[in-house]
C-alpha cells in the first residue's frame, strides 16, 4: 500500500477494506470492442460457442441504452475508459504457501480470512485433519485465484468451480443453463456482462444431494480503472439443497468503478437454493467521491414443483446500488423469498428490491425489506409482484420498513403489484420511522452509549432479515452495520 493510501485509510477509518494490493497484473488495454472480447475469450481458453455468445451479446448491447428509471444519479459512464480484463500473473498451481505471491497472501490476511482458509484460498492443499467448514471461490478482479474443497465436494457429485473452468469442463451444463434465466438482452447491464464477463462461480448440485457445506465466493476488485463483470450460475437438480454466500470488497479510490454482475439460479422439483449476500463494496468517501457502481442482475427460476429460492442480502457498500434479486415461480407450490437490509450513509444511493413473478399454481412469495438511510443518502425500495392468470391461489406478503437517521436523507418505497388471477392474495405493508430521540434517550438512561444505542435499535429493526443469514455471516453483518453507521448520529 502506498503512503497516501495508508493515510487515507487512517483518516477514513469507516471503510476498513479499502487498501490496495500491489501485485503484478496482466491487464487488457482500455476499451470495449470485438478485439477485447476475443482477448478475454482467448485468455480463458474458451470454446468457439462461448465467444459467439459473447459477440452476440455485444451486438445486442450496442443497440441498447442505459436504464434511467431508477432513483439514482451519476455522471455518464465512459465504457471505453475501462479495462475489461485484469488478472494477477500467477504461477500455475502453487504447491505451498511459499510459492504463492506474498502480496496475495497479505491481502487475504488483511481481509480477515483466517489462516487455514487463507492457505487454502491461495491454492495450497488443506490439512485433511482439519474439519472443513466453508468452501470458498476467491475471485480477484477478472479471475478466480482459487477454489477450495473441490475434491470433498466432488465426492458427492457437487461441482463447485470458477465459471471460466465450467465453460471448458462442463460445456453441456453451461450451454443448457447460461442465459436461460437472465437472457442476454434482458437489460443493458446483463447484455454488457454477457459480452465481457470474466469470472464467477459455477455450482451444480445433482439430484437428491444436500450440499455438505456452505459454498461461498469472495469477490475483490483491486486493479484501477477496471470493471468487474462476474457471472454466477447455480443449478440445483430435483431434491437438491444448497446454501451459497457471497462477499465483496474493493480498495478506496477517488474514481468510480463499475461492477456489473449477473447471477442465475435454477431450482428443479423440491430443490432449495439459499443465496446470501453481504455486499460491502467501497461506498465512496464522506463527500461522495469514488465508490463502486453496483449494477447487478440476480434472478432465480423455481422451475420445479415445490422448489424454493431464498435471497438474503445485507447491502452496506457501493456508491450506487441497482439490484433486484428476483424469483420466477414457475413450479406449482414453488416458493420465493427476499430478505433485504440496505444501509445508505453519506452520499450513497440505493435503488434495490425484488421481483416475484407468480406463474405456478399455489406459488408463494415473501418480501421483507428494511431500508436504513443516514447522512445525505437516498434509499429506494422498488418491488414488483406479478401474478399471472395461471397462478391460481398464489400468495404474496410484502413488508417494507424504512428507518431514517437524521433529517437530510431520503427513503422511498415504490411497489408495483399486478394481479391477474382473482384467487391470488397479495398483501403489502410499509412503514417509515425515524430513530426517535426518546428511544435513544431511553437506552442512554439505562447506561448505553449513543453508538451502542443506535446499534441496538438498528439491529432490532433488521432482526427479521439478519436471522435468515447463516450464523457466521449474521455476526459479520451486525458488525458491518455498526461500522457503516459509525458517527451517523449526533
Amino acid at each position: 500500500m502506498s503512503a497516501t493510501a495508508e493515510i487515507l485509510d487512517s483518516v477514513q477509518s469507516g471503510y476498513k477494506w479499502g487498501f490496495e494490493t500491489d501485485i503484478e497484473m496482466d491487464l487488457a488495454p482500455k476499451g470495449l470492442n470485438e478485439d477485447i472480447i476475443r482477448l478475454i475469450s482467448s485468455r480463458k481458453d474458451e470454446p468457439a460457442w462461448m465467444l459467439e455468445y459473447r459477440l452476440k451479446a455485444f451486438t445486442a448491447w450496442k443497440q441498447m441504452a442505459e436504464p434511467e428509471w431508477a432513483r439514482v444519479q451519476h455522471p455518464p459512464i465512459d465504457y471505453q475508459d475501462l479495462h475489461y480484463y485484469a488478472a494477477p500473473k500467477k504461477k500455475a498451481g502453487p504447491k505451498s504457501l511459499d510459492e504463492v505471491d506474498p502480496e496475495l497472501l497479505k491481502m487475504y490476511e488483511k481481509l480477515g480470512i483466517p489462516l487455514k482458509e487463507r492457505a487454502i484460498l491461495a491454492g495450497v492443499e488443506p490439512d485433511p485433519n482439519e474439519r472443513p467448514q466453508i468452501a470458498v471461490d476467491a475471485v480477484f478482479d477478472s479471475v478466480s485465484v482459487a477454489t477450495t474443497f473441490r475434491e470433498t465436494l466432488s465426492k458427492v457429485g457437487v461441482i463447485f468451480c470458477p465459471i471460466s473452468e465450467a465453460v471448458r469442463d462442463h460445456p453441456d451444463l453451461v450451454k443448457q443453463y447460461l442465459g436461460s434465466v437472465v437472457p442476454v438482452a434482458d437489460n443493458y447491464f446483463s447484455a454488457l456482462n454477457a459480452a465481457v464477463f470474466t469470472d464467477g462461480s459455477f455450482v451444480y448440485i445433482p439430484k437428491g444431494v444436500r450440499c455438505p457445506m456452505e459454498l461461498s465466493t469472495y469477490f475483490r476488485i483491486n486493479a484501477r480503472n477496471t470493471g468487474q463483470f462476474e457471472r454466477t450460475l447455480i443449478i440445483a437438480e430435483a431434491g437438491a439443497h444448497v446454501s451459497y454466500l457471497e462477499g465483496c470488497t474493493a480498495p478506496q479510490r477517488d474514481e468510480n468503478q463499475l461492477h456489473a454482475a449477473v447471477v442465475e439460479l435454477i431450482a428443479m422439483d423440491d430443490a432449495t437454493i439459499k443465496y446470501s449476500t453481504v455486499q460491502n463494496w467501497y461506498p465512496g468517501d464522506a463527500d461522495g467521491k469514488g465508490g463502486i457502481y453496483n449494477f447487478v442482475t440476480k434472478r432465480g427460476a423455481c422451475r420445479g414443483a415445490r422448489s424454493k429460492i431464498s435471497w438474503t442480502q445485507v447491502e452496506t457498500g457501493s456508491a450506487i446500488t441497482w439490484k433486484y434479486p428476483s424469483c420466477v415461480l414457475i413450479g406449482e407450490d414453488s416458493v420465493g423469498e427476499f430478505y433485504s437490509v440496505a444501509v445508505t450513509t453519506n452520499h450513497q444511493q440505493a435503488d434495490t428490491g425484488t421481483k416475484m413473478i407468480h406463474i405456478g399454481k399455489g406459488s408463494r412469495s415473501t418480501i421483507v425489506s428494511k431500508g436504513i438511510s443516514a447522512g445525505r443518502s437516498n434509499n429506494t425500495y422498488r418491488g414488483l409482484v406479478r401474478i399471472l392468470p395461471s397462478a391460481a391461489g398464489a400468495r404474496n406478503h410484502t413488508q417494507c420498513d424504512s428507518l431514517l437517521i437524521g433529517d437530510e436523507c431520503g427513503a422511498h418505497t415504490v411497489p408495483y403489484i399486478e394481479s391477474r388471477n382473482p384467487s391470488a392474495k397479495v398483501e403489502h405493508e410499509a412503514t417509515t420511522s425515524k430513530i426517535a430521540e426518546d428511544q435513544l434517550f431511553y437506552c442512554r438512561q439505562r447506561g448505553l452509549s449513543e453508538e451502542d444505542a443506535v446499534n441496538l435499535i438498528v439491529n432490532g429493526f433488521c432482526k427479521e432479515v439478519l436471522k435468515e443469514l447463516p450464523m457466521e455471516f449474521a455476526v459479520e453483518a451486525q458488525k458491518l452495520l455498526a461500522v457503516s453507521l459509525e458517527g451517523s448520529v449526533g
Partner: protein
Amino acid sequence: MLEIRGLTASIGEKPILKGIDLVVPDGEVHAIMGPNGSGKSTLGYVLSGRDDYTVTGGSVTFNGIDLLDLEPEARAAAGVFLAFQAPIELPGVNNANFLRTALNAIRRAHGESELDAIQFLKLARAETKRLAMPDDMLKRNVNVGFSGGEKKRNEVLQMALLRPKLAILDETDSGLDIDALKIVADGVNALRSPTFSALVVTHHQRLLDHLVPNRVHVLAHGRIIRSGGPELAKELEKSGYADVLAAAA
C-alpha cells in the same frame, strides 16, 4: 446525597423549572406531588440528562458529582435511574438482550466484569420471579405489545437489575391496579438501604401507603411550594391542591 440548588430549566423559550431547591439525603425516599403541568416530569428528565431541556441556572450534585456536567449514560453509571412515565418501545430488541447490554455497560463503567448470557439469565429470572412477572417477559421485545401494567413492571425489573443509587419514579403507579401497585412499591422497598435514595413522583396517596416517604414535596408552577412529612400526602388526598396553592400565592 442529592442536592438541587436554585435549579431553573426551560424547554425552548418556555421556563418550566423556576428555582428548585431540594435535598434528598442517602437512605431517604421523597415523594413529589403537585398538579398537572407543574414540572414534575421535567425535573426527572433534567436530572437524568434529556437534552430537550435547557438548564438555565442552578446546580445539581449527587454524592459530590456535578450531574449536570455528565452525559445521560454517565449519570446512569453514577447510579441515576429514571423509571419512565411512558416506557419506550424498542421493536426487534429482545428485552433480555437490552437489559444485559445496559447492565454490562454500567458494570463496565464501574470496572466490574461483564455478565455472560447464562449468568445474566440466572439473575434476571430470579428478579422476574420476585416481581411476579412471567418468564417470557425477558424474551419479548422491549415494551412492544406490553400492557400498561407490564410496561411499568418492566421498569421496576430494570431498576431491580441495575441497582441504582438514586431512583426517580415518574408516576410509575399511574394506571396500575392494586396488585401491580404493590409490586412497584415492593420493588422500591427492596432496594431501600443507607446508600439508596428515591424521588417518587405520584398523584396518589395509595402508593405512599406501601412506600412510606421520609418527606413529601408539593411542586407547582416550577417551584416547591410546600414540604412536609408523610402526613402532607394524606392532607392533599383529602383536600386537593387548592389550599396549598392559595397559601403559597
